[in-house]
């Protein structure tokens, strides 16, 4: 997704002069705000400075652990000239006109690793404008030219004067903020790129005071759990709650207006869970999904073995197939990727509360405020401007909290609409609800045939992909579906950053077996695996070193190829490529996703038959200017763990339409002993910053698979344990 700079708009400065708070924002309109008496509600404040000098950054991206509460705050602090300790943060209210994600259009939301990418300039401009207007106020007060003043660590000094910024807030709030404040040259950065900047959200998260949506505890709230159909598409005919009635704290049960389930209202969570357990529901299964995973598997395999529905490369498949046929050697592999649940640590939950003026507040670890905002207004028949979203900490997401159908917030609204609205309704999902509840990473298959000429060069690459589209039939279709092709199904294959002569790629959509969703790194979860496993297999067949072979196919001078080359060389060097410890095997993978470039070397001991142990992962990342190096490292560690854990042993399977797995015991999370050490190296770059939440994930599983293949089988169907790999 690209954004032209002019779309980002210009600075707007204004003031709530009565309250003597300096409020600085950036407007998409490009119109300067009137300084005095300006309607501050029309501004999107990114920074507020109170008369006591308290600086607050307004963070428009939700915090699920990926770091925006620290990152966006750093940008303001850097340009304004205050220390990280002197700046607080708040999450922005729901208002897509003001807090839209510039990469998404008129939508406020977080995803696609865009938070830093779309905020880098905006937040710096806001910080810089605040700095300049404060300096201007000091200049007037002291009668000292601005050029002789400086603002450092929250203190303005010059011309023999010295005072904290708080003293100038009242005066500054009557001035007009500059339209084009000077941004620091990267050489002047003190906080951006500083590895010693600590996370802003650590303190509340280590003493139990951080509030997640699950922690909402209104005195008069009702807790609702929902008994849902075990098969997608089934609807409620009737229910019998006679066994639920004796449960202490049970209030009542009611069929949701859309008949997708029965809401169980209770005084507390345990009572709701108990009563739900006791509830008997009769389902209409006539429209319910009845396929099993084996059926879906067969359908996918059939699809990659027939003419693809869409020709992605718009070239002649027969010609390329012919070239491969005539090649010296042919390498062919067929891959399968199962459904995967996101399983964020905090199960889904949100609370809806009525306000005195006839509106509602949604308390939610909200990833895309714009979508539930509109859904609540519609379902609850409340004007848009009377819906508020209180964004709280989210206990992970990995994509799950951003469904195009707004699934759990809609459930909460439907449960709320069936009440007299006097009591807040808190919807709680159990872990079983989460694991069985749909919205999975879709199952995909790939079949790839590569021909090699006598010199070991690629003579043709025939690549077919089949799977369920994430975007089709959703409001996001316009963003990612073009000419029938959902980009999210093929990103990473088309386009690939490799120079591959004679490449054909095709896609076949399969019809829904369940609801599917973006899952940390989306299409790259399977495309990177296939591309990187194939590059390895082809290098081996050609008798060439896997790193050298990749570099040879990244030798052009496109920025992508140069940056991939950079991270690949760095990971190989730091990971001692080719010089692993005695008895160990290494595997490598490199991939671009979400504008960032990541290479990983995985070193294992043991083998597939006797037990593989992941000893070390060496990672190199190029994500442009590294704003918070330690957060970037943490995201690489997390992304790698997330990718490896699922590839090792997780899958969601269907049996006659029902999900088999229920909870962590059969959807086993990565555990502390599973990975030895992860070492991350960050490329020093001057390019604009790009995302880090997702790009660490794609190379991890194929690098592990390639390490296993060094001494054993090439795993082409996940999870690895199902393919016969044992882990020590």
């Amino acid at each position, binding site marked *: 997704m690209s954004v032209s700079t002019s779309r980002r708009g210009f600075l707007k400065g204004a003031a709530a002069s009565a309250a003597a708070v300096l409020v600085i924002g950036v407007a998409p309109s490009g119109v300067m705000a009137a300084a005095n008496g300006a309607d501050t509600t029309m501004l999107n404040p990114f920074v507020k400075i109170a008369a006591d000098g308290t600086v607050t950054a307004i963070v428009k991206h939700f*915090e*699920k*652990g*990926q*770091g925006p509460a620290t990152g966006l705050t750093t940008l303001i602090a850097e340009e304004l000239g205050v220390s990280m300790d002197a700046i607080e943060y708040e999450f922005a209210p729901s208002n897509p006109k003001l807090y839209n994600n510039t990469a998404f259009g008129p939508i406020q939301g977080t995803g696609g690793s865009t938070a830093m990418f779309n905020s880098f300039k905006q937040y710096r401009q806001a910080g810089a404008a605040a700095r300049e207007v404060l300096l201007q106020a000091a200049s007037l007060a002291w009668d000292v030219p601005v050029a002789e003043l400086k603002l450092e660590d929250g203190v303005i000094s010059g011309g023999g004067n010295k005072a904290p910024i708080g003293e100038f807030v009242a005066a500054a709030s009557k001035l007009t903020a500059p339209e084009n404040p000077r941004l620091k040259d990267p050489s002047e950065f003190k906080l951006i790129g500083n590895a010693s900047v*600590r*996370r802003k*959200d*650590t*303190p*509340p*998260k*280590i*003493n*139990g*005071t*951080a*509030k*997640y949506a*699950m*922690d909402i*505890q209104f005195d008069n709230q009702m807790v609702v759990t929902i008994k849902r159909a075990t098969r997608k598409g089934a609807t409620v005919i009737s229910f019998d709650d006679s066994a639920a009635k004796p449960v*202490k704290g049970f209030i009542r049960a009611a069929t949701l207006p859309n008949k997708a389930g029965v809401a169980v209202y209770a005084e*507390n*969570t*345990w009572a709701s*869970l108990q009563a739900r357990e006791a509830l008997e529901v009769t389902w209409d299964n006539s429209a319910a999904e009845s396929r099993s995973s084996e059926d879906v598997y067969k359908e996918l395999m059939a699809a990659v073995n027939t003419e693809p529905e869409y020709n992605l490369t718009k070239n002649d498949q027969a010609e390329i197939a012919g070239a491969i046929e005539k090649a010296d050697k042919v390498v062919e592999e067929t891959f399968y990727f199962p459904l995967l649940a996101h*399983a*964020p*640590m*905090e*199960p889904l939950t949100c609370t809806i509360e009525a306000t005195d003026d006839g509106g509602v507040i949604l308390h939610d670890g909200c990833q895309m405020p714009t979508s539930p905002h509109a859904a609540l207004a519609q379902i609850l028949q409340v004007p848009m401007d009377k819906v508020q979203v209180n964004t709280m*900490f*989210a*206990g*992970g*997401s990995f994509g799950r909290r951003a469904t195009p159908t707004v699934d759990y917030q809609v459930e909460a609204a439907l449960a709320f609409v069936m009440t007299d609205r006097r009591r807040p309704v808190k919807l709680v999902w*159990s*872990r079983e609800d989460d694991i069985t509840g749909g919205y999975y990473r879709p199952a995909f298959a790939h079949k790839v045939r590569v021909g090699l000429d006598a010199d070991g060069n690629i003579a043709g690459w025939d690549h077919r992909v089949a799977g369920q589209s994430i975007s089709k039939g959703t409001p996001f279709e316009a963003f990612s579906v073009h000419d029938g092709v959902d980009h999210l199904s093929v990103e990473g294959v088309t386009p690939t950053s490799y120079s591959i002569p004679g490449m054909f790629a095709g896609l076949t959509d399969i019809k829904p077996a369940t609801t599917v969703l973006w899952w940390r790194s989306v299409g790259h979860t399977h495309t990177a695996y296939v591309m990187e496993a194939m590059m390895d297999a082809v290098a081996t067949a050609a008798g060439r070193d896997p790193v050298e072979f990749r570099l040879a196919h990244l030798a052009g001078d496109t920025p992508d190829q140069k940056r991939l080359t950079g991270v690949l060389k760095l990971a190989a060097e730091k990971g001692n490529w080719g010089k692993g410890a005695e008895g160990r095997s290494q595997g490598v993978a490199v991939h671009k996703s979400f504008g960032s470039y990541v290479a990983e070397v995985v070193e294992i001991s043991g083998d597939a038959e006797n037990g593989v142990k992941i000893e070390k992962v060496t990672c190199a990342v190029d994500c442009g200017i590294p704003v918070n190096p*330690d*957060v970037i490292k*943490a*995201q690489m*560690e*997390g992304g*790698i*763990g*997330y990718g490896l854990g699922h590839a090792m042993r997780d899958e969601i399977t269907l049996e006659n339409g029902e999900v088999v797995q229920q*909870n*962590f*015991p059969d959807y086993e*999370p*990565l*555990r*502390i*002993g*599973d*990975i030895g*050490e*992860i070492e991350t190296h960050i490329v020093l770059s001057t390019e604009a910053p790009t995302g880090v939440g997702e790009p660490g994930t794609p190379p991890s599983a194929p690098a592990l698979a390639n390490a296993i293949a060094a001494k054993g089988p090439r795993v082409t169907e996940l999870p690895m344990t199902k393919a016969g790999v044992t882990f020590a």
Partner: protein
Amino acid sequence: MAISLKLNGQTHKVDAEPGTPLLWVIRDELKLTGTKFGCGVASCGACTVHLDGEPVRSCQTFIEDVEDAEITTIEGLKSTPAQAVQQAWTELDVVQCGYCQSGQIMSAVGLLSENAKPTLEEIDDYMDGNACRCATYQRIRSAIVRASEIMEA
């Protein structure tokens, strides 16, 4: 049934049915929300609290079994190992989403209280029941080592 609980040094009277998990009494009755619900089946460790200093999974600990015990939640931590753990967690910025971290910290304090200088293997063994979906494991391991150093100093 009326039950009296000794929690974080205070006695609380609560009314709960036998078989109610301690987790839900702590969260929904006492409104101490630092102890988290992750799985309900003793498989993730997010709900870890101390019973007489020993980490237990409060989602599978029943209210009728804890009347005589001293219960400590994340909000009531103050031992020397606890301070060392929280300091180490801060130095290393262990947290990401943070949702598992109360449980991680309760377990880490449990470990260091019985073994002030654990080996990496002992750390992995002891912490095996505490899942972190954000995969902060490497920092958890380093922070426990660091906390052990802080305790020694």
